[in-house]
């Protein structure tokens, strides 16, 4: 019997087979940074619908909204970073095509992931008090502290419910076949929280390496994800494109500009889709290479 942990490598298509209509899917990264775009593109190629998407939103949210796959969206912002407003998301909101919209404060969003990661029904937070986040989400509740506050009166705080996920989709720089993974850029974002908040986690990476290779040139503190959190590992070089995945690559600003420009016009968007999103992931990467060479 092998003493090695199991090999979790799988294809993009095998990930999609595990997803179902109506699932709650958390997407790692932040804005237009280190997003599991190859997995998002695979969802676009599938028939999946009525999804609840939980995301520090970037083009992942934009693309899924444009394709009409989102029934419920949980976010604190949606942005392309260097282009502040995500055009597809903006349009979806203005046309009212996402049936349930849950806009949270960023701290509330993190607190909700923490609660789910800790298997708690909620966690208290100050963030959200007094704002319209509590008005526009009238199902959110407050909770009175059982302890006296500084002036003797107990504080009433937001009871942020756990953001429980059926699935988390993440993209990191490197992993081994078992799901141990490192991020090599400056920010871990909240990918470990997404993994712990989810029943299943699928992790795409730029490169699958031997376990020993994970720390050969990288401090152990960068091992953000361990294999207990992971159900599938997918090697997808360029899998975060066009979002950033430093140090492997920066955001493809030229491509992002083309994406945002195309989003504003129906014919231009159909042409963009036909050129970049009609085929599988290798067709996408080939089309991007061709775009680069122009």
């Amino acid at each position: 019997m092998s003493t090695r942990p199991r090999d979790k490598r799988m294809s993009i298509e095998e990930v999609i087979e595990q997803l179902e209509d109506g699932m709650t899917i958390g997407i790692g990264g932040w804005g237009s940074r280190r997003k599991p775009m190859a997995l998002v593109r695979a969802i676009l190629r599938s028939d999946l619908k009525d999804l609840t998407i939980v995301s520090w939103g970037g083009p992942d949210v934009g693309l899924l909204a444009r394709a009409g796959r989102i029934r419920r969206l949980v976010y604190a912002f949606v942005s392309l970073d260097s282009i502040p407003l995500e055009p597809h998301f903006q349009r979806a909101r203005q046309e009212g095509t996402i049936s349930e919209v849950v806009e949270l404060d960023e701290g509330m969003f993190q607190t909700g992931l923490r609660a789910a990661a800790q298997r708690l029904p909620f966690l208290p937070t100050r963030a959200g008090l007094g704002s319209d986040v509590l008005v526009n989400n009238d199902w959110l509740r407050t909770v009175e502290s059982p302890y006296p506050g500084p002036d003797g009166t107990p504080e009433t705080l937001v009871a942020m419910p756990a953001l429980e996920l059926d699935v988390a989709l993440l993209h990191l720089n490197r992993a081994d076949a078992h799901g141990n993974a490192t991020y090599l850029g400056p920010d871990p974002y909240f990918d470990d929280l997404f993994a712990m908040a989810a029943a299943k986690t699928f992790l795409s990476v730029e490169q699958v390496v031997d376990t020993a290779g994970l720390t050969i040139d990288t401090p152990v503190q960068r091992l953000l994800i361990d294999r207990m959190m992971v159900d599938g590992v997918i090697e997808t070089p360029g899998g975060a494109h066009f979002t950033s995945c430093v140090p492997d690559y920066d955001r493809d600003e030229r491509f992002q500009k083309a994406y945002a420009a195309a989003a504003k016009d129906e014919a231009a968007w159909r042409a963009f889709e036909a050129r970049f999103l009609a085929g599988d992931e290798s067709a996408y990467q080939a089309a991007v290479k061709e775009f680069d060479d122009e």
Partner: protein
Amino acid sequence: MSEATRSEVVAVAIADCWAEDGEIFASPMGLLPTLGARLCKLTTNADLVISDGESLFLASPPPLGSGTGPIEGWIPFRKVFDVVAWGPRHVMMGATQLDRHGNQNISAIGPFEQPRRQLLGSRGAPGNTVSNRTSYWVPKHSPRVFVEQVDIVSGVGRSRAEEAGPAATRFHDLHRVVTDLAVFDFGGRDEDGAGALRLLSVHPGVSVADVRAATGFALTLPEGLGPDDVPTTREPTATELMLIREVLDPRRLREKEVPS
């Protein structure tokens, strides 16, 4: 040295916001706030902690649009939220709308259910305003920004915080609003109570009438002062002008946000 431009007056007015803060994290959103925070660190508050707006604490203020220089700490987004909750932070946010009661909107214009114009989302504004000292930067002062009542309350004004109870007011600390025309604080009162916007000073070359015309609600002036007595925002010192022009913004990026 030639006379200060409007963007330079603004940079100094913004820098003054952090002058008394001591050893806390300055979180500027946008170009002029970033310039102001860096100027503050080089002039009135050497203890100020500044970042690259991404994930690094910078040991010394680099010029706008250049590298990071020496690094003194690590501040990824998760740690930013920890500092928000912990407290030693003064954020300067933008505002698509800001109302008389000190509420800010960066979420959307129009009804939330189906807005006329979707913006970024609430981001961290609700949590920032009930946890940290908060100021605002408005690069183009207009009645579209300064409204009677914001469409969606992202950043929480004083009266809304008071309605929400002591947990919301405990660390609520709105400080200044700097615009291309003037400086405000939140020392006014209105029918909702304390915390209403109050004009503190007008920039050189700007009249109270100019500010009034660009504001969508009745201006509150400092107590006992008529329109002609409102102070003028201070001029930059020669040192400040040198730091802005030669050290922090030699490429004059400030002019893009506030043209002369």
